[in-house]
């Protein structure tokens, strides 16, 4: 960041837009496309980019997610740096054949002779009354695709640096953006080009009583829970995974070995969610440090509610996180 000292306050939407603008400006191979991307996208993430960079580089595609991802794979194979937008992560499912059959297998299948340096961005998660599939969190499915990286930022500054790193990465990257964070927070974001390393978790708040392991839209929920706990003299450590695949187990284990207690927080359905992998790894690697069972706080194993009247009961909040914390502290 040494070459980019200036900062501006930005929302996550603005930070992603800024990262895309930087990428389009510095590399002519970068192409940005998807449904309604030309006019700025339904969340206005690509606002102004078509006007600045032209219709040849920022453009609308036909309405077909399988086409968007498959087409992007071909673009990448033949020399471009495609950045595709899927309008909502819950609309990705028609493209799963492309994701599972080609996207992450291509390097391995061809011994690294063909590669797919492609980024697929999608808004995910609930919290702003986008009904049912518009609030899905399918990240665990994506981590099951070999050869694919999955990145989920938790604030504007990190979103920009991680997205630029994803676009420059030699492998395909899913970049999921929590809809809840799009406009709810403003933070200082450096101008110009900078990257943050993929595959590294970070300590978002230091503490010694218990570890909260989380990512994306749940980071602010966990930080809020940690603030409440701190008022009662309980210091929680919050680990923000940032990259789910490849998973930085070392950072998580170091924290759990220190605190002896872990709660994993994610908003996808509880069963088979990425938090289940985190809990399993803690059990495999640091079970002897544990002083309490590893608990999960997650979405319920029912579809995300399509009505805002009950939506807030689905998504984990600070109250549910603190209930789990009390249980592990009492054990």
């Amino acid at each position, binding site marked *: 960041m040494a070459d980019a000292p200036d900062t501006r306050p930005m929302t996550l939407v603005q930070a992603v837009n800024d990262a895309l603008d930087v990428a389009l400006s510095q590399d002519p191979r970068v192409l940005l496309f998807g449904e309604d991307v030309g006019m700025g996208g339904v969340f206005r993430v690509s606002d102004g980019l078509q006007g600045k960079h032209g219709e040849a580089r920022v453009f609308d*595609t036909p309405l077909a997610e399988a086409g968007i991802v498959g087409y992007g794979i071909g673009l990448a194979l033949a020399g471009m740096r495609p950045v595709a937008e899927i309008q909502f992560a819950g609309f990705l499912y028609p493209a799963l054949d492309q994701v599972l059959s080609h996207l992450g297998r291509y*390097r391995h299948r061809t*011994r690294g002779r063909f590669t797919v340096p492609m980024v697929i961005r999608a808004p995910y998660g609930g919290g702003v009354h986008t009904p049912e599939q518009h609030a899905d969190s399918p990240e665990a499915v994506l981590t099951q695709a070999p050869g694919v990286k999955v990145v989920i930022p938790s604030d504007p500054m990190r979103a920009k640096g991680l997205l630029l790193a994803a676009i420059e990465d030699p492998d395909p990257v899913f970049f999921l953006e929590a809809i809840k964070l799009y406009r709810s927070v403003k933070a200082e974001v450096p101008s110009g080009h900078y990257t943050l390393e993929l595959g590294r978790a970070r300590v978002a708040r230091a503490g010694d009583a218990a570890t909260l392991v989380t990512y994306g839209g749940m980071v602010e929920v966990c930080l809020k829970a940690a603030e409440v706990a701190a008022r009662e003299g309980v210091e929680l450590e919050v680990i923000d995974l940032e990259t789910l695949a490849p998973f930085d187990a070392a950072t998580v284990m170091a924290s759990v070995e220190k605190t002896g207690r872990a709660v994993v927080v994610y908003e996808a359905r509880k069963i088979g969610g990425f938090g289940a992998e985190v809990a399993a790894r803690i059990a495999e690697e640091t079970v002897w440090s544990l002083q309490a069972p590893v608990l999960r706080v997650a979405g319920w194993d029912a579809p995300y509610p399509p009505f805002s009247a009950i939506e807030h009961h689905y998504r984990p909040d600070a109250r549910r996180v603190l209930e789990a914390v009390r249980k592990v502290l009492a054990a």
Partner: protein
Amino acid sequence: MIRDSQLFQPFNDEPISLIGETGAWEGPFDLDLDPAALRGMYHDLVVGRLMDERLSRLQRQGKVSFVAPSAGHEGAQVGLAHALERGRDWLFPYYRDTSLLLAFGLPQVEMLAQAMATRADPNRGRQMPSHNGSKDLNIFTIASPIASHVAPAVGAAISMKVQGTGQVAVASFGEGATSEGDFHAALNFAGAQGAPVVFFCENNRYAISVDYNHQTGADSIAAKAHAYGMPGYTVDGMDVLASYYVMREVIERVRNGLGPVLVETLVYRFGPHSSADDDSRYRPREEVEAWKRRDPLLRFRRFLEKQGLWDDAAEAHLRAEVEASLQAATAEAEAAGPIPVEWMFDDVFAQRLPHLEEQRHDLLD
């Protein structure tokens, strides 16, 4: 030159055919290929057929796990391969394209090494047999899920268009693939964006056991082109020259920036769907025998004989030469030895990642 005007009209009712069943030239224009080019096509037909037979033999011997026989498809495939610029244009093939891949330049030893998963396979045994690919030759590596390669072909074509390279991408597939959603998405993208891509359907009337009439209500596969705003042609795929001349005209059109084309070749699969299939359960023997009488190799051999370019001695000589070449390639592929299991963990990502190194270590311990 015949290239001054368009020889073939799209949405034709009768399949385009240039050689009659007796081997007589019936084209409405003068043949412009020299004897070496014509003999070269026959060579490639014979190589494809004999490789196909060899792969099936190796499968029965337990040396190959799987084969998708392509006998009966050679005419369509060799015609296409000869109309493309090798090393320049891109192929997005499917798993029944043995003759196409070999005629486009894939070395015999690579195909055999991949089928047997030996160290001579440049892709290190990471693809199933009949699912070849080649970076050197711009051949997209095949995956089994049907039609999953068609949208990538369109993306690659747009990349070529953006870069102004004048290259053409060709995606080949069976008629069953045209039922998939990805097929529709791909043709729709290509039509909307004017991609330099050719969609090449090898319609052999059966997707494993499901026949054409259970696959689609359309009169022809070529007719589907209409809805995507591109021309569609139906070609007699048992006639290598019909495939060659149609593809030559189509590829030139696409190279000149006139947008995508769908070509349907009518072929027949002489063997089962794969080494795991018994086609006698769903195809009457008389039907198979009737199509075998239309064998693309036989028809083209009769044509060459009528042109005074071929005889029994030439046939015996060619077959012996090709068998010797395939035998040498088989021996070379086998001698390289089987792939080691630890190769499985390479090339998952650009970097070697700790969790994969741990798993490699766990496996080898």
